[in-house]
């Protein structure tokens, strides 16, 4: 079962992180990882640790911001939130992935006879 999970395509993790922060608001790293796993219906193979490389990359590009804050039971955790530039980037990336998904969908819908 475990080896049935999808490998993440290059660059998709960054988009997933941005989208998660955009949809849900500020989250800590573990929260983001869990959300991605839940939303994907546990379909993607995610080493939760890899999310931190993605987070630092997005941060350095200025697409997300980080701040130490208090978690549920009042412990200190680092919270990430999407920035205005991040939203712009997300919009662009989302459009790109949408188009790619559409094209792939249409390609794969082709039947052997060449007819729709």
């Amino acid at each position, binding site marked *: 079962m475990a080896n049935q999970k999808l490998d993440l395509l290059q660059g998709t993790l960054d988009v997933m992180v941005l989208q998660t922060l955009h949809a849900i608001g500020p989250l800590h790293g*573990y929260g983001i990882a869990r959300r991605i796993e839940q939303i994907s219906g546990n379909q993607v193979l995610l*080493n*939760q*640790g*890899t999310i*931190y490389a*993605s987070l630092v*990359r997005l941060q*350095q590009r200025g697409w997300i911001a980080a701040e130490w804050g208090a978690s549920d039971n009042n412990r200190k955790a*680092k919270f990430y939130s999407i920035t205005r530039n991040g939203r712009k980037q997300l919009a662009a990336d989302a459009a790109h992935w949408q188009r790619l998904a559409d094209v792939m969908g249409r390609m794969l819908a082709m039947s052997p006879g060449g007819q729709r």
Partner: protein
Amino acid sequence: MTTLVARVAAFFRKRELDRDLDRELAMHLELATEDNIRRGLSPEEARREALICFGGVEVAKEIHRDARGLPWLDSFLQDLRYALRTLRRDSGFTAVALLILALGIGANTAVFSLGNVFLFRPLPVKDGDRLTVVAVESKANPEPGQICYADFLEYRAHSSAVFTGMTGYVMSIVGLGYRGHADRLLMSYVPSNFFTMLGIRPAFGRLIESGEGDAPRTGTVLVLGHSYWERRFGADPGVIGRTVSLDGRAVTIVGVVPKEFLGPYNVVELDAYAPIGMLGFGATAGFFTSREDREVRVLATLRPGVSIARAQAALNVIGERLAEEYPHADQGQRVRVFSEPSARPEPAAADSKPLVVAVFLLMVGLVLLVACFNVANLLLARAAAREKEMAIRAAIGAGRKRLLRQLLTESMLLAVAGGVGGAVVGNSVGYVLNGLRPLGDFPLRLAFTFDWRVFTYVAGVALAAGILAGLAPALRVSRTDLNLALREGGRGLIGESGRHWLRNGLVVAQVAGSLILLVAAGLFIRSLSRAQSIDLGFDPHNVLNVSLDPSLQGYTEARAEAFCRELLRRTQTLPGVRSASFAFSIPLGIYNNGAPGVYAEARVPSPSERVPGAGFNAVSPDYFTTLRMRILEGRAFRDGDTATSEPVAVVDQTMAARLWPHRDAVGQRFSYQAASGPFVRVVGVVRDAKITSLLDAPGMYFYVPQTQNYQSIHVLQVRTVGPPEALAPAVEGLVRELDPNLPVYEVMSMEKALEGANGFFLFKVGASFAGALGGLGLLLAVVGVYGVVSYSAGRRRHEIGIRMALGAQRVSIFRLVIGQAVVLLGLGIALGVTAALGVSRLLVSLLVGVSASDPLTFAGVSGILLAVALVACYIPARRAARVEPMAALREQ
């Protein structure tokens, strides 16, 4: 861009960010564990599950760091630290490798710096990169040289289409008297546009101004050279406005040139500058009108965008017109334009200099190559010892690229350190050269500066050396077979020797390279000894020269003659003196008298005929005795030849044969001024001697008595019984007795004087330079052969132990080791001789009296190389022969 800034920032905040990350990851795992407990897992299982979902914590940290900072810089710094540590640990290896590289790179730096001085670096003047030298080749002097003043004015007046300006200078040695003391300076007379065209601004006072002193007999002002001003006047700005005497004429100091302007003549610094009009006074008055008095060194600045070829074409037109107008002087004259750096120090050198520089760059390149091979071999030997270390590194996951990078970092570090050392070595060679005095008392002032060209060159050489020396060993090590290396435990196996072809090949290449260097050195040294054994036509041994110039003290001609007569009389009575005489100039010295034309009496030259010129010297009666020059016919001068008796001359064989081909020269008359006279009578013929040039066949030359041709510069020459220098204090004492204020200069033996620019200077410099490079090559080759032989003998201890246990004799073991050395040396020498035969052809034009394939040189240097290397290999061979079989077999 912002990412890069963030990454660089992260690189420097590593520790803080790591702490942050640790906290964040700990919190992640804590939250995950809690979630899992909430889902009903036991605390241990919950923690385990959290760790599994997370993946490797260290891996996560690593990819986080890679994404965050500058991973390549991190690993580079790591390699650098590691390299520093290993190099420090192996301090013996490091010292040897550094020394080798520093010498190799140093030799390159020195030669390139010299090339920079003579070929590339523009003068520090306005538009220095567009500055050219204009020179003419005339019938009298086939090498491009100075121009007569009248022609200079013509060229200047009609070339403004191609040049923004044209100026010139006339070099001269004069006496400057100030407060009862006189000294000799090397100075220039310049037209008034000299400083403005070159864009020189005064350090103090003013320079020669536009229009000042261009007319004959005007412009009695003087501008001082910077270091002369410091030396003589203690850098006192108050000298401006003071009056000094220049060859007895009062002039006013008006300014000082800036420190960085050494003058337009690249190899010496000029002490002063005066307006050209001053040449109108006294003996040089003919300068402004004579077309045969070629003394102006011409500089011109190209207009932007004008090529040298175009300027050349424009001047050709003027030159052709001049030849038509003044056929007598200018016919057959060819004007040439050189870029200023290529015409250093004299335009005559422009054609041969690139070859000289190329030959020496080739030689030092070879030294560097041999040095690199040597360091490569040292690295290989070390790498073999480190095979196990590398295998372990590879086993724990270092990629091949990573290992390669690490090893190259080591060799690059060596090369950079060697480059720094080399720059120091190279620059010190410059200082040594600047101490040489090929121009009499005037020191060479080569403008050695560590400018960007030299820096780029040294950096490039060091980089190449690092790669060259490090790549092969690094490639070899990084290819190490893991299993083999770990199992073998560093013990050499017999069948393994085939793997050492690389090291052996490097040694063969080293031997070959150093043989080429030795051949070049041998040829230059043989060339020098041939030059030194040339029959000069006079005997330079046991002769002391002492120069003096009574005009420096303002003596009149009569007083100077009385002074010299008395000095000569007293010198001749000194104990240890065989004979003494005066002359105006010394053979193969830096200055000479020349007569543009000599005319045999009663023979009117046809208009198309070229009148031959001749050099001459004014001497006292005992001159020929003192220099041991044989009088072949007639007589030498005697005391009876005085100012009032008939003017006489002694001519050399060449002149006698040329002017009176089928007649006895003695008794004939000739003039060295004009076809119409005045005439002098030939009283003797002297054997030809090398007076003006060491290599050329002796030209026409004659001698006149000083009593009939007064010149204030005198060289007292003393033939001594013992070493000539020992007599110098006594002779100087005599001068002081007669006049305590009269300076003497260039006090040296005639043999020493022969080491000047027109004597053996270039041979000596060439031979010592090539000799040093050859010695360096020999040293490197011997170190290389010794290293590889003793290393492989060491690796074969086990094998040798077995052989001896099986009954091999010590002698045969000795032979085994030496045999390896002989094979390597033999191959190297054979290869080297073949290559040297090809390369040495380049040297042909730089050698005298030695063929470029001189068998004696080739055999000699091969023998030396073989002998020295075999002596070095005796040590490891004896060590191998002394191996105790049991001990060798027992060690692992």
